[in-house]
Each structure stands twice: as structure tokens, then as C-alpha cells.
């Protein structure tokens, strides 16, 4: 697609590190694994 982002570019790397890394850190900080344990129980 024309929307493809070149993940090798510096800007994309900065963006990826900021946004994707931040979201994942959020999952870790808020114990998504524990939530899933509770929901699956």
C-alpha cells in the first residue's frame, strides 16, 4: 500500500521507538498478563 512506512528510516525508527515502545511499556507497567489471567479465569 502507499501507506507503507519505511521502518529502516531514522524518522520511522524514532517514531516506532516512541509510539510502539511506549504502548508496549504500558502493557508491562499495567500487568496486562495479570489482567488476562483474571479474564481467562
Amino acid at each position: 500500500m502507499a501507506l507503507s512506512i519505511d521502518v529502516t528510516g531514522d524518522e520511522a525508527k524514532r517514531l516506532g521507538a516512541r509510539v510502539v515502545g511506549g504502548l508496549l511499556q504500558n502493557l508491562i507497567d499495567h500487568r496486562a498478563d495479570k489482567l488476562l489471567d483474571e479474564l481467562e479465569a
Partner: protein
Amino acid sequence: MSGSAPRHSGVVHDSSVGAIPTVRSPTCSSGEIAFPTKLEDVTLTWIASAFGVDPSSITAFELTIPDQNPGYGSEIAFLRISSTADIPTCAMIKVPPLHPESAALARAAGSFRREAVFYKFLAPETPVRTPEVHAVEVDDSTGDAILVLEDCSSMATFSFIRDDPQVRLDQLQAMVKTAARLHAHWWNRSDELARFDAVMRPGHPTWTSLARFTQSALGHFLDSPWAEFAPAESIPTLRRVAQNFGRLLTDWWPTNNLTLAHMDFHVQNMFYDHDTPDDPILAFDWDGCHIAPGAHDVAYLLSLLPIDLRRRHEAELPSHYHANLKLEGVSNYGLRTSCGTTDLVVSSTRIYCRWRSASM
């Protein structure tokens, strides 16, 4: 392009970054199409109709297309009008995306129609600021629409990508206060909102379809180059989230205390009006609005902040949100419920999937 000759339409692309040729489009009578769905098809006659004035009162207009489109779900242009009538001299025009695959996605998700329905029917009775609506036209059969909105480009904006300036706590508080006012107004009024079939709700076919799509997208993400940005310790959790994401959005999606949620409530979808410090936030991009737990918007806002900023304020902001919900009359809703882990996880993961789907 600008000029003084009447009945000439003009489209210019902002060439401040790259050289893009000026495009002139022929004048199109309003009888040829019900309303324009491409920026090039916007004519003086249609503009006059949109503002409810006689075409002869408009002496010139200019459409400027930003060189870099800030979104992928629409095309926008800034309109400048010279007129003898009492109408705004500037506005923003928004039409469906030009790219065929983006347009197909917008139609399949009903996103452009949803935003048009919000601005046409819900914004006028929702007590939060949005860009002022000058005109909205929507074709229910295709989902295509055109929006003519207040040009807010002179207001302050924020970014979760730029390092500086970072959004301040008082600005974030103003955002969650706006969210509280939105949510309190529509609290437990799902039946009224459900009259608008464009607005998604639990069990809505579009939402169910998106749940399946995003679960699949998250799985693809784990095999993509983007996964290198993931902290290694997050991968096992992410795999579990990916396996269960459809259920998070359906079976495990809250069904109580629902309201109208923006669902894309991040700092880049806000204007900040310094001239009105008591009510400075204007929220835009309502194409995902949904009957949902309002806390999702707060969690989403927090989820897209830089990590240090989120950690610094993630105790304060849900409390501020909850206090404002109470001030707006919402009772029997606990703070623990108001921005729980479920919302943070779901909102984080949803953003994730949007990211992935935008880069596929």
C-alpha cells in the same frame, strides 16, 4: 491559486516542502453531482450552496491542500473565501481519502460517514468544543461525505512524536475535563445514540469485524520489523494479548456505564485555544466515535504519551477525570472502575493494531 474573477475554482498544493504543481479544476455545476467527494470537484457554486448564499456573493476562493496530509482516513484542504456575504473567510474542507485502498477501508469501516453523522447530528447537542460545523453532506448509500469545518489551524496543537514542546499537565487536565463533560452528557443514553446506526456499539457488525481484523493485524505485527521496537520482555504478554484481542473487544468489552466515547482521544486530535483558557480544548477526528466506556478515552490519551510523561501523570489524570465526571452529575461510578487496567490494556493494544494496519 488566488484571483478575483468570479466562478473560477482554484486548488493549490502547499509547496513549502516540495514542489507540487498547481491544479485547476473546471467549474462544475451543482447539478452534475450531489456534492463533491474530491477536493478538485469543489466549486464556487457548491461553496455558495454550503454556506447558504448566492453564488454571485462569492468573488473568489482558494483551496490549499497541505503538502503532507496529517491523516490517512481523509483528504483535507484549507478554503479561503472572498465574499460580499456574511460568511467565514476561511474554513477547512474534508473529503474521503483519495487512495483507492484507503477509500475502500473508510467505506468498509464506515469511518467517514460516522464522522459526518457525528458533526451533523451529535456535535450540536454535545457540550464539548469541536471545530464549528459550516456544512455537512453525507450519502448514506455510499458512506461518502464532505465536511466544511472551522479552520482551527491558528490554534496550538500537540504531538506525541515531537519531543518539544511536551504537553503540560494543566493541558492534559483540560483534555480529561473535556472527556468527562462529553461522557457525562451521554452517560447511559445508549438507546438514544443507537438511533444513529453509523455510531458503533458493542455487537455492532463493524466493531466485530474490526475486532477480528485487529487481532489478525496484531499477530502480523509480531512477525514484522516493527517488533524490534518492542521491549523483549513484552513479547510473551503481547502474544497472549494478540490471541485474546478479539475477546477483549467483544466478550470482555464492558457493557455497563456506557457513553459516547471519542475512541481516538489522543493529543494530536486536539486543538488548544489560548484565547479561551476556561474551555481551551477542541476535539476533532470523530470518525471512531462509539458507545463505549468513557474511561477508554482517558486510557487512550495516557497510552500515547511518552513513557515518562504517562508514568508521571497516570495517577493524577484518572482522578481528575473521575472528579469532573462527578461534578457533571455522574454518580455511582467508582474511581477504580473509571480507568482500570482493562481500559489501558485495550486502548494500548487497539492503538498498536491501528499502527500496524496503517503500515501494512
